[in-house]
Structure formats: C-alpha cells, structure tokens
C-alpha cells in the first residue's frame, strides 16, 4: 500500500502542453502512471504524446470526460493560483502543485478556499509524489527509488532525491515519497503526512527531511513524540547557512533565535528521532 497516489490514481496534468508539463508527463506515463488527461486553456481537442493523452480546455471538462481525480500542476507562477482554484472547484480530490514562485498572498487565498472545500493540496514549489512501482505525480525521478516500506516526507526538492537514491543504493525501498515543498504557505505539512504514514500498514519506518526556517520541524517533533510509534530518521539542511540570508526557498530564512538547524535537530532528537549528519547517512540510521 501507499499514501495519496497509487496505480488507481487517475491523473490530470494542468499545463500539459508547456515545456516542463509535457516533459514530465512523458516521464510519468513511462513510469506507469495513469495520466488520463491534460488541460491547457485554448488547446482543448488536441492530443499529446502521439495521441495517447487528450487535452481539454478546462479541468471541469477534462474531469467529466475522463474521470480524473487528481491533478498535478505545471503552469507558470502567475497562473498557479487560478489553476489550483480551478482544480478544487472542479472536484479534484488531490492537487499537487509543482510550480515554484507562487506569491504568498495568492497562497493564503488558495489555502483558505481549499480548506473550505476540504481539498488536499501538496505544494506548491515541490517535487510532488512518488509511490515506487505504482505511480508518480510530479517530477521525482522514478529510477531513484524502489518499492518498499519506508515513508519519506521532505520540505526540500532535490535533497529528497539524494535520500531516495541513498536508500535505493542500499536496497531499501519506499512506500510513498511526499515532497511537501518549502514555501511559507503551502498545503499538506509534515504532521499531515506523518499521520498518514503512521496509519498506513505498509509503511514501517519514516524519513523526515527538513531545512532551516519556520517551526515546522519542531511541530513535527512534538507530533512524533505524541503520536508516531514507527521509527523516524531525519536530516535537516542548513546548519552552515549564515543567519538572515534567504537561501533560495522563501521558507529558508533564519531570523533571530528561531528556525535554526540546531533547534530543529534538538527538538527531533528529544522526540526520539535519529538525525543524520549528511543525507547519505540516513539509511544507516533506519
């Protein structure tokens, strides 16, 4: 089993005809994901990938035609909020927004709307979801993970791949990998994912990858100490980042005494989590 996506997921790609959209759609299809539709306004009626996937003008039309239940979004940042609203309004159960650079004011409105509708969002500014051997919704390379019983959740993008790759190199498999993204306001967080992994019978161990900024890791540590009985290993990026500098991610800013790597590491260790010195150590700690 797995969480969030599996072989029954009927995936729709918003922004399918863009450069990144079509590139990753091809990868998702190659991986075996059931990509049932694409959406690009104004291109309804076209087909992509040699006529394999129909393109529609809107999510609503695409859903009615194909029964899509999950949407992955590759549209440019300025259109991303509208794409998320559209997906939620059309009844998608799960929305994964890969797009980076979405304005925070847009995301506050999106979260408010999605919470009202009860729709789950992963991202934005995230690599998406991978359930090895079943499906991927996003941009995590499929060949760097094998099926197994380790649940991986991460605020970081490529750092996640490092961990997956390190696990695979030691023959360790993954139930689902969830890239939640590092933006200040986003959808699914560490706690949401930990809860799902704790409940998933096929997830035996959990890897949590955090980074400096905010207090999400500290909150996750508190949740783990209270509710998570499965072993958790972790890595926190940014020990050497100078304070006050914005390190790419909107979230990765160290301000005053909060958001520091050492505080996060201490909180996690206090919660019984083993914290690695570098990501390739994680397999040893599990």
């Amino acid at each position, binding site marked *: 089993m797995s969480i969030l996506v599996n072989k029954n997921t009927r995936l729709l790609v918003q922004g399918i005809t863009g450069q*990144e959209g079509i590139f990753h759609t091809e*990868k998702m299809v190659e991986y075996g994901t059931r990509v049932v539709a694409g959406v690009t306004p104004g291109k309804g009626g076209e087909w992509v990938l040699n006529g394999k996937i129909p393109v529609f003008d809107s999510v609503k039309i695409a859903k009615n035609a194909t029964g899509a239940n999950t949407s992955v979004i590759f549209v440019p*940042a*300025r259109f991303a909020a509208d794409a998320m609203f559209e997906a939620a309004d059309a009844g998608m159960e799960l929305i994964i927004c*890969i797009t*980076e*650079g*979405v*304005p*925070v*004011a*847009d*995301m*506050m*409105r999106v*979260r*408010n709307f999605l919470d009202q509708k009860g729709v789950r969002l992963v991202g934005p500014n995230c690599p998406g979801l991978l359930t090895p051997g079943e499906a991927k919704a996003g*941009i*995590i*390379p499929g060949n*760097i993970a094998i099926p197994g019983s380790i649940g991986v959740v*991460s*605020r*970081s*993008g*490529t*750092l*996640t*791949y*490092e961990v997956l*790759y*390190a696990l695979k190199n030691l023959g360790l498999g993954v139930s689902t990998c969830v890239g939640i993204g*590092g933006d*200040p*306001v986003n959808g699914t967080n560490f706690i949401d994912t930990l809860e799902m992994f704790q409940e998933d019978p096929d997830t035996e161990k959990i890897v949590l*990858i955090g*980074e*400096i900024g*905010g*207090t999400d890791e500290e909150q996750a540590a508190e949740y783990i100490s209270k509710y998570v009985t499965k072993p958790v290993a972790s*890595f926190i*990026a*940014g*020990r*050497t*980042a*100078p304070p006050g*500098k*914005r*390190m*790419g*991610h*909107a*979230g*990765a800013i160290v301000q*005053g005494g909060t958001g520091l790597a050492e505080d996060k590491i201490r909180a996690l260790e206090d919660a019984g989590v083993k914290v690695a*010195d*570098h*990501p*390739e150590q994680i397999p040893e700690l599990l």
Partner: protein
Amino acid sequence: MKLHEVYSKRIFGEHGIPIPSGDLARTAPEAEKIAKKIGFPVVIKSQVLVGGRGKAGGIRVAKNAAEAKQHAQDILDLTIKGLPVRMVLVDKAADIKTEIYLGITNDRAARKPVMMASAAGGVDIEEVARKTPEKIIKCHIDPLMGLKSYQSRDLAAGIDLPREHWAAFGKIAFGLWEAYQDSDATLAEINPLVITGGGELLAVDGKMVLDDNALFRHLDLEELRDLDVDQEAEIRARENGLSFIKLGGDIGCMVNGAGLAMTTMDIIKLFGGEPANFLDIGGGASADKVAAALEIILSDPNVKAVLFNIFGGITRCDLVARGILDALEEVKTDVPMVVRLVGTNASEGQQLLKDANMETADTLAEAAQKAVAAAKGN
C-alpha cells in the same frame, strides 16, 4: 525586496495615510532647496537599507537653510554599514508628542496576515516583542475578508489609544492594509506613527518589504530596487534567474535546489572545507543559465575548487553537462572541478563530462571530499 523609507511612505500616502511633506534629494543643494520650500525645521534622513541609521549619524535635524545644506552634505558623504548614502529624504520635522507602532506581516503558521500595534513605538520593535510581548497587540486579518473596522478598534483599545484618535487610527490601519495587499508586501510598518502636539497622527517613518515572487504584478515597484544592498555577483545572478549568496570560503558550489545547495555547504564543512557561496540554479536550468552561474562563481578570486552537485528532477543532467562544457569554453579556467550528476538523463550528462575529461563523483560525500582535497591543492 526592501523598499526605501521614502518609497514606502509614498505608497502609504497614496493609501490615505498622513505623511510629512518632504522630498528626495541626491545632492546637498537639492536638499537645501527642498528644505526651504517645505519650511523649517526639517529632518534629513539617509536612504539606505540598513538599520541603525540614526546612531550612524544618518538622520539629522536642520533649523535653517545653511544647516540643511551642511547636514545633507555630511550625510551624503557617509557610508553606513558598508552602504554608500546616495540620497536623502528631507521631511518637515513633526512635533512629536507620542510614538506608537503599527505594522503588518504574514503569520506563516496561521496562514494569514497579522496586524500589530504597540504603544511602545519609535524603538526597535523586535526588542519590544522579545522583552515585553504583552505590549504588542495582534490581530489576524482574513485574507479574503480584509481588515474590518472593529479590528482596528480592538487594536486601538488594546494599546490604550485615546478615543479622539480612533477614527484617524482606523483610517491609517485601513490604508496600511490596502498598501500591504495592493503591493503584495510581506512587511509594511509605520514606526513611529506619531501623535503630534496638534493631535494629528502622522507616519514619520515607514518600511515595506515586497514579495519577490509577486513582483511580476508590480513592475513599477521593482524599478525602485536599491542595487547597493546586493553585491554585483548577486545582481548578475538574479538577472540570470539564479539564487546566489557569497560566503567566505574557497569551494565554489553550483547546486540545483535550495535544500540540496545548503546540504552541499553543510557537507563541505563536515569534511573540513569552507563553501565560497550558496548557488541554486533552480529548476529547468538551460545551458546558458549554467554557464552564467559558472562565470559568477569563478568571478570570486578566493575560489580554489568548484563542486557541481546536480540531482536531476526538473533539471535535466544532459543540459547541465552541456552548460558546464559551454561555460568552460568561454571562461577558460584552471580551477579544479568536481562534478556529480544524478537523476533525469544523468547517464547522458555524465558521459558528456567524462568525454571532456572532467572529474566526477557518485555520492555526495565522495564529491565533497574530492572538492575539499582539490581546494587544498591535493
């Protein structure tokens, strides 16, 4: 992106917040002319994007034209915390009776903007927040509903603002919320918001920070960017869509993804090296972008080795490899390079680099160790 006081206050003024009459000067004679026009006394304020301008002598009061000219010249000659003063704001001096604080920022955890007021204005508000948090009254704003009148009244009551100022305070709170929202700000604050001897409220100092991700909606504001706060390399990086921060070490880093870039810095340090920079080439990096990144890294004379750590997701490793090779043809350098490419199209990428006789590594630890050794000349 931080906005200068003068631009922040102009935006506030456009949203109905009373601000002192004043104007911007780039020379002492200009400052004198403005001062004469608005009348004495005036306050001459350096426009630099660092704190502690006052202590550094960057804010002075002038009682007459001669003083205005002299103070303006003195301030324009200053360099405050490494930043040259290129312009001064000449404001009519306010008759300050009371100083309060009013600001908005985003509360990540609540996913809402939060408006904060304090009777302890005019000082370092973060100090107030740390030492006497009860002196800061907070009020979350629903992003869909906007600020409500009763919220501004709750703030006014919370800071014991005398009732005769509630209406004026309410208008200012609304103006600040609108300024914040309309500009896609992540911070908008008035500190101090003063009550004058005449009983009027006036935004004497103002500060705004804008959401870089939303600047596409505010091209007029982006033009106000102060390039002094960024180093030349950081400006070039931004022009090329890269995220770059110069650090003190000798190992240049080119990495895709902020988390992996920080991790690369961490692991260099773990194995005894010192990173020269943070550099995230982001997703979908083209050969041009990679070449630009390499040039920026090599423009730092301290760099003794470069570590490329590319784990392909959105970024395709073959494009990265081509970018490195293209850049090396242009840049011509003897600095040793260690390249690690993993993920999407990694085999094609690594083949290209091996064909060009470059040093490659499989694991991050291996790459870091090789780079540290190369920087030490081993």
